[in-house]
């Protein structure tokens, strides 16, 4: 056993350390840059395909024409209508990816996804009640109703998890989330079942899709998403601390309750509005952060931006795939992500040390 001496050769050792560690850091940084570049390239490709492909496939000329504002041919019109859809797919994917990453960080649960805090179930119940009892039909009203429902559900989950000593621990958040989700889902069923007249309407919302998106749907969610992205990125350092365990985080000067609440607000602001517009889209928030960990490492300051890119890529490609598979009809993107996500999910559970996030 070598005896430890702090005085001896510290400067020499730190030079040696600096050399090798800097090399390692550069290597990591290079890999990250390459990964980021690939994701950006994929995103560009996905966006192009999303604009070009569908019931009517269009060519370059029509795309550039439509992008410059001309709508002369059917192709131009198709492109113009696919633009907001593509934007929504990218935004939704990015929001769900980041939201999932934040949720996994704040609960230290690798299987957490944005629905964990009851957000999806809350949004769904609110929309269903709105449709069934108050006859709402306009998109704008949907969105506000769903956001309100999501917020109320998330607050309820958080409040229940905070009861008793120790505050909102990861386990309690997961349990309270599961309980509230189950309760809200049965309420939703109870509201819908006796109302055959609204079944179809509710069903189409529940599947989750970006088809038929318009700028009118897109605009109201933008402020929420902007706030959500900013808060989540500001919380990234705090998530790095929470990842070491609550006690270690507190020992390093982080206020654990504040860190957790702030991250939760960021995650809900991202996934609530997206759920409102698209319906619940599963698996993106679960799978994307895991895949991105391979590229970005465990530092949330990198992981969250990567998850935004990765989520946008996955959802946009899934949407395009949904249009291809059932051509000329369409498969909703929520169904496609489930097909992609389920195998990845199983792979995660089988191959990774679940629980050691």
């Amino acid at each position, binding site marked *: 056993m070598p005896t430890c001496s702090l005085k001896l050769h510290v400067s020499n050792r730190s030079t040696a350390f600096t050399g090798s560690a800097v090399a390692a850091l550069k290597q990591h940084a290079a890999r990250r840059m390459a990964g980021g570049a690939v994701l950006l390239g994929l995103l560009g490709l996905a966006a192009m395909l999303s604009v070009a492909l569908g019931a009517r496939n269009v060519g370059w000329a029509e795309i550039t024409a439509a992008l410059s504002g001309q709508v002369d041919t059917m192709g131009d019109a198709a492109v113009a209508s696919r633009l907001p859809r593509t934007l929504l797919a990218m935004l939704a994917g990015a929001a769900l990816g980041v939201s999932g990453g934040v949720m996994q960080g704040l609960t230290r649960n690798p299987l957490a996804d944005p629905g964990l805090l009851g957000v999806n179930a809350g949004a769904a119940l609110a929309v269903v009640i709105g449709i069934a009892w108050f006859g709402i039909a306009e998109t704008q009203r949907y969105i506000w109703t769903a956001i309100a429902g999501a917020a109320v559900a998330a607050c309820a989950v958080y409040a229940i998890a905070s009861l008793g000593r120790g505050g909102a621990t990861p386990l309690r958040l997961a349990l309270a989330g599961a309980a509230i989700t189950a309760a809200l889902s049965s309420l939703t069923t109870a509201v819908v079942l006796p109302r055959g007249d609204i079944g179809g309407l509710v069903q189409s919302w529940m599947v989750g899709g970006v088809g038929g998106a318009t700028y009118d749907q897109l605009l109201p969610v933008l402020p929420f998403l902007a706030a959500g992205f900013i808060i989540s990125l500001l919380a990234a350092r705090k998530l790095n601390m929470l990842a070491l365990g609550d006690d*270690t985080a507190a020992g390093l000067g982080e206020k654990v309750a504040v860190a957790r609440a702030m991250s939760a607000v960021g995650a809900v602001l991202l996934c609530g509005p997206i759920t409102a517009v698209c319906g619940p889209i599963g698996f993106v928030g679960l799978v994307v952060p895991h895949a991105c960990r391979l590229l970005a490492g465990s530092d949330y300051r990198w992981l969250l931006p990567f998850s935004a890119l990765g989520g946008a890529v996955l959802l946009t490609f899934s949407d395009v795939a949904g249009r291809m598979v059932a051509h000329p009809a369409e498969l909703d993107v929520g169904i496609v992500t489930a097909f992609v996500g389920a195998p990845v999910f199983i792979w995660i559970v089988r191959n990774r040390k679940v629980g050691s996030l």
Partner: protein
Amino acid sequence: MSASSLLAQDLVAGYGERTILDGVSLKVPAGHTTAIVGANACGKSTLLRVLARLLTPAKGGVLLNGKDVHQLPSRRLAQQLGFLPQSPIAPEGISVLELVSRGRHPHQGLFKRWSAADEAAVADALAATHMSELAERHVDELSGGQRQRVWIAMALAQQTDVLLLDEPTTFLDINHQVDVLDLLTDLNRERGTTIVMVLHELNLAARYADQLVAMAGGKVYAVGPPEKILTEAMVRDVFGLQSRVIEDPITGKPMMIPLGRHGGR
């Protein structure tokens, strides 16, 4: 780095209705190593948590260099006082370098870039714990003893005058236990870091600590140098164990030999 002292006054603390610490006062002298010993559930970890401000006492307070720790902003406190819990969590796939770097958290702001001082502190912490060579390795791949060194390196990178450790040797083989305690002693001697740790192993506590704190039933049973504290009477009262205490032939410190029912020759 100047030595810092900790003072706990009339602490009453617990979880919910359950009182665990019942009137604990303790002076931790600056620049010394203090080990807290006692039977399970005697309140030793709770005392450490209150000292680290992880738990707010119902009554009493903790003074760090004469200032109430509950009045200090958490970042300021974390610049002066480090805490290593019993089972910290290493995120999957994190490298040694990255984990140790996180010890710089209280010295960084939201927009403050990684500085030369941060770099030097991390390099120094890795060198002091002999982890420089392994800086790029994943923490998951290390042995239990190496992993504990990484956590201590992280606490070192925090560069605090006071370091609190909750059972830093649990789950380690005896050679690694001695290794960790040697390392902490080096820290204490060469940097003047005030160390307070909860230890399970009575003989190691007596050997490495300047001051022993024996706790029983949520109160301090006795405080003082190991020679005064580790006695057959203390072992009987605190642990309910019959023992013989002899002089350790190597260091001259007291050494406890449990008698048990099959102790006879």
